[in-house]
């Protein structure tokens, strides 16, 4: 039974980023939230503490982040759509369980409202310093999916996408928000109930739980077809083998590499579905800006001004940051004489990825910013220099 209060009235709402994300989660069917207050993500747990009980869900303030993420794992194991929200220090505590969740292949959604670090840092300032951490957010090797929204509307929409990805690919999915984005107030256009319900992947038992329902590969095509997540407390639960390494046939394997390969391949082989990107004035560009999250918004303005000056510059935007879309980036920067990567961090995590893809043949110019916004002029200055 779907609660009436699950969907906000369709139409325009003025919302804070963290609220938009929470509402996205409720619309996606999230019924369990475990969290622990941390600036700048606190509004998420505050909003959900009020809203989730209204729709028959549960919002728990746990004793710490370790407990939060483990409770989320427990809820997900028994069939609830569950999520948590935190910031860098909380993510650090959760690492062990993220790794465990990837191993159990149960759906998890995290919202990381990133703040400055290392250590306590400037807690209310944004800093995309967890972007690399999210990729390697636990012991062992596994693949996660990370999405980078850039406005409140996307915080709402991409949260629904994140839940769908988690259900479909059975892996931890990250929403990389940040201190500014989380606290931005913007108009969010809420779709109608029918439109939302059409988009959502429900947590359901397979129609037939008899036989080999745990198999991961379509025998005719050899492609990965990931079975829906097991639910503890039903017939559809592999019991003893739940935590044990298994091969694509869904049966335990004594060969670690078989399981390892599957954990990663089941996601990377679906790049065309997972990799979400956008372009802006890219067709004839010989200077390419590759960016994600908030710096994209500053880049739009910089590109518009540069185009007026006759400089051919365009934007390639990553919405899905991880797994990194090598092929798409390769195509986007093929004819570029330079790639500019404005990033809200110092080391340039994504710039390094671009360098890897271009094999250092094209110059990659970083525009690092820490705990402050890129002004369009910062980007424009670099564009003009490159165009000279």
């Amino acid at each position, binding site marked *: 039974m779907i*609660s009436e*209060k699950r969907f906000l009235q369709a139409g325009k709402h003025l919302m804070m980023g963290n609220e938009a994300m929470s509402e996205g989660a409720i619309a996606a069917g999230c*019924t*369990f939230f*475990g969290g622990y207050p941390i600036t700048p993500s606190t509004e998420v747990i505050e909003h959900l503490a*009020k809203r989730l*009980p*209204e729709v*028959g869900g*549960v919002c*728990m303030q*746990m*004793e*710490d982040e*370790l*407990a*939060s993420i*483990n*409770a*989320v*794992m*427990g*809820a*997900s*194991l*028994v*069939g*609830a759509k*569950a999520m948590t929200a935190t910031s860098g220090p909380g993510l650090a505590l959760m690492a*062990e*369980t993220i790794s*465990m969740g990837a191993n159990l292949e149960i759906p998890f959604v995290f919202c990381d409202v990133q703040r400055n670090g290392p250590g306590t840092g400037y807690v209310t300032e944004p800093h995309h310093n967890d972007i690399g951490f999210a990729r390697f957010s636990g012991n062992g090797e596994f693949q996660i999916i990370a999405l980078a929204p850039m406005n409140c509307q996307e915080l709402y929409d991409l949260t629904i996408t994140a839940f769908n990805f988690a259900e479909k690919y059975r892996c931890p999915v990250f929403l990389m928000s940040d201190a500014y984005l989380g606290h931005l107030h913007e108009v969010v256009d809420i779709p109608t109930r029918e439109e939302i319900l059409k988009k959502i992947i429900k947590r359901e038992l397979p129609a037939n*739980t*008899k*036989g*080999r329902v*745990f198999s991961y590969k379509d025998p005719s095509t050899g492609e990965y077809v990931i079975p829906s997540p097991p639910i*503890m*407390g*039903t*017939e559809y*639960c*592999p*019991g*003893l*083998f*739940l*935590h044990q390494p298994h091969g694509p046939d869904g*049966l*335990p394997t*004594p060969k670690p590499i078989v399981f390892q390969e599957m954990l990663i391949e089941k996601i990377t082989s679906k790049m065309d579905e997972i990799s979400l990107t956008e372009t802006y004035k890219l067709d004839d560009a010989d200077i390419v800006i590759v960016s994600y999250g908030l710096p994209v918004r500053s880049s739009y303005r910089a590109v518009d001004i540069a185009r007026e000056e006759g400089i051919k510059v365009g934007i390639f935007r990553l919405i899905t940051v991880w797994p990194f879309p090598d092929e798409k980036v390769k195509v986007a920067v093929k004819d570029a004489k330079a790639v500019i990567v404005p990033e809200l961090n110092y080391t340039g995590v994504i710039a390094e990825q671009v360098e890897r893809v271009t094999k250092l043949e094209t110059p990659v110019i970083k525009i690092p910013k820490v705990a402050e916004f890129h002004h369009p002029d910062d980007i424009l200055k670099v564009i003009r220099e490159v165009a000279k």
Partner: protein
Amino acid sequence: MSGVGPMYPNEKPEHPYLSKSYVGDLLGNYSSRFCAGCGYGIIAQIYTRVFEDEQLDPFLHPLVIGIGCYAQIMLLVHSKAQKILTLHGRAPAIATGMKMANPKMKPIIFSGDGDSMGIGGNHFIHLCRRNLDCVELVFNNSIYGMTGGQGAPTTLFGAKSSTTPYKMFENKADAVKIALAAGATYVARTTVAHPRTFMKYFKKALKHKGTSVIEIVTPCVTYFGRKNLDNLGFEGEEGSKMDTGGKMIEWIRRNSVRNNQAKFMTEEELFNKYVIGEFRYEPNKPEYADEYAKIQKIAMEGKK
């Protein structure tokens, strides 16, 4: 614990995950991987027996297991049982998520002394504080068995372990006192030398609505016994060496004091002793999931 023995032995039913009936198939499908003389075999047996006696629905009683030697008990319960091997110390938090996402469930948590008093102490305290409807069994073998005999927060004063090679000098943690202080509503301690009492307590815990904590003192022959052959034995007695399971169980039995007797004993007399018995039974205290359901009702009706 021995590393030998098959992990997936000859059990090859048609649908390994989807067997039809729940039978506590102790030792039927899997060989035990415990050391000879370990107390966990007794616990596994009582657990499966109670499950059968009470005709518990395995789907409503998921088994949430921490990390330690006792985790191997999961190999001994039938494959239909809903069991999940979790992380070291985090089982109470996972059980909390399960219970709240599906309030019909009553999770049963297995944890060791290192698990619940050391790494997971915080989760243990908050589980008791919430009075969430579940049963937590704390297996106290006074040592870290799985990692090879290091000192635990529960190691007896003066005992030797591989990380306290001279002697243990820290004060020990008492799971019962912590559970009482944190607010668990059914708290008891027993030992594997008193299996019938354990069975009674476990059945009572299953019927109790609220957090039940039962500490079970159990022998680790391989590490605790071997390292403390003489110095914790019964002084002046022949054959005091704790080198077999039987002798260790006998030592545990003699080292235990009933709580009605303990009332009349001084602190010195109780030093390093295990006080056994029931310490609290409050069946009518508000339970967390019930209380949350009330909150949901208020929220749904739109009251503030």
